[in-house]
């Protein structure tokens, strides 16, 4: 049993090492510590890194922003003000226990709440749009700031 496990681990290590080989050949002896991101992916990583999170959470059936949510949105606003060329779509999600159509409205309400708070913090409204996923994506009640461009 233990032997079999060891074998699996070795196989996994060997697998990951060989997967890096082409990269090693191209980029010389020092492999990059992090994958190089370009375009929207790099912006998204930077946005999440500097804002702390792209997602804020809500209490059950509520669209009221709590203190942690407001802190996250303040950081998001900072970043958005420094990147006026970036457009974002705020996607609101309702709780899975909600009913189908009420959930669509709750998701939209949460997204609008986040958008309005970002506008309050000085982010130009043209940079922001809001939409709802209702309860169609699994997970807790939340609003996600998605960079689109």
């Amino acid at each position, binding site marked *: 049993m233990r032997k079999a496990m060891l074998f699996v681990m070795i196989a996994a290590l060997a697998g990951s090492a060989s997967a890096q080989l082409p990269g090693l050949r191209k980029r010389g002896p020092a492999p990059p510590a992090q994958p190089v991101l370009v375009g929207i992916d790099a912006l998204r990583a930077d946005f999440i890194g500097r804002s702390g999170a792209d997602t804020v959470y809500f209490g059950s059936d509520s669209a009221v922003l709590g203190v942690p949510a407001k802190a996250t949105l303040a950081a998001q606003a900072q970043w958005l003000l420094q990147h006026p060329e970036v457009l974002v779509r705020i996607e609101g999600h309702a709780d899975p226990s909600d*009913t189908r159509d009420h959930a669509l409205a709750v998701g939209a309400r949460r997204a609008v709440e986040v958008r309005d708070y970002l506008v309050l913090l000085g982010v130009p409204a043209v940079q922001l749009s809001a*939409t709802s996923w209702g309860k169609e994506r699994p997970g807790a009640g939340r609003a996600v700031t998605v960079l689109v461009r």
Partner: protein
Amino acid sequence: MNKVRGFILAASAALYAAAPAQAQQSAAPTVSVVAVPPFATPDSGPTANQSLGLGWQATQMIVSDLRSTAELMPLPPKQKDFYSYPEVTAPTFSKWRAAGAKTLITGFVQSRPDGRLTFGCYVYDVDKGRELARKGFVVAGNDWRRAAHKCSGVAYTAVTGAAGVFDTRIAYVAESGSGDGRTRRIAIMDSDGFDHRYLTPADSIVLTPRLSPKAVRVAYVSFASGQPAIQVLDVDTGAKRPLLPTGGVSFAPRFSPDGERIVFSMMTGANADIYVVGTGGGLPQRLTTAPGIDTDPSFSPDGTKIVFESDRSGSPQLYVMNADGSSQRRLTFGGGWYAAPDWSPDGQWIAFTRRGAGARRIGIIAADGSGERVLTTGPGDEGPNWAASSREIVFQRTDATRRNQIYRIAIDGSEPRKLEIPQDGTDPDWSGVID
């Protein structure tokens, strides 16, 4: 012939007179036993064999239709119970009385020179030896199922007084896969599960298909544009178009009873209000202005009122207003949430989803706000929609493994039954009678 008929009538009259108490009992809402012997034919030669074959298939279909109801119990059909064509309109009542039947269905299949078929369908009260209803249908040569469903409807209405649901359609959202990778398509089928087909491709999320009264069109919500917006689709051609020319979040569509208008919800900022617009387009008219979420509107069958869900009082409850938005008043006052109302086709009931104590259940309440009853145990039931009979409801049930299935339940309190569909399903909607 006439002599024989007279004798039977006399005999049945005598029996009826001898058992008045029994006849009175049959007026109570109990299950009525129905005899459905195989259909006869006036055709002769090889055509007769063909017609008798179709008649036998139709007979079995009628039995299967009636077995699906709570009110009628068909006796198992037997091919040896054949009768001659003249006996279609002059049945031997004593035989069926002896078999314990209260209702008798006879009929015939006749081939026409143009290749189509004529179906005749007759319904009798066995105790009284009296005809209750008769109807003839002409259908395409391969469409005996349709004729059988219509005959089932004639019998069901003759016995119960309610519209039959046999010649109706059900639309729903067919699901495959799970989680974010799950695909969803609008599907439609006959209420017995036949003629199942998909109306939309699997390339975007679709929700809440709502059929026009005769299942000619379906209004639904699509995320194809990046946000939820109502589309209207022609069931036969598949042609679709957005209900509203402008963008914005719109959802919860439902047709008016005449199919000419669609009532729905639209977001303005954080506020969801109810609007109505012509099915063919035009300028939407706003019906509610309360801050908060007003959604899930459903017309009364006479088109004069609309029941809807609103959280204006704090938590979602049901409200009723006139079709022009005037006289809004609260209908429900119970604990928990009331959501997703649907007004029954006979006008008596409003079905809803009730949320509370960690569960969603299906319930009904009289249109005047009295007599609330919870019909299902939950915990993951939602989205009730009425059958044309106003005696059954179709709804969605999410099980413990988060899989979605569609169930139908009679409002008399019997157990819900699962609908047989090819995949998982959500958001069922039941049409009115097609013709």
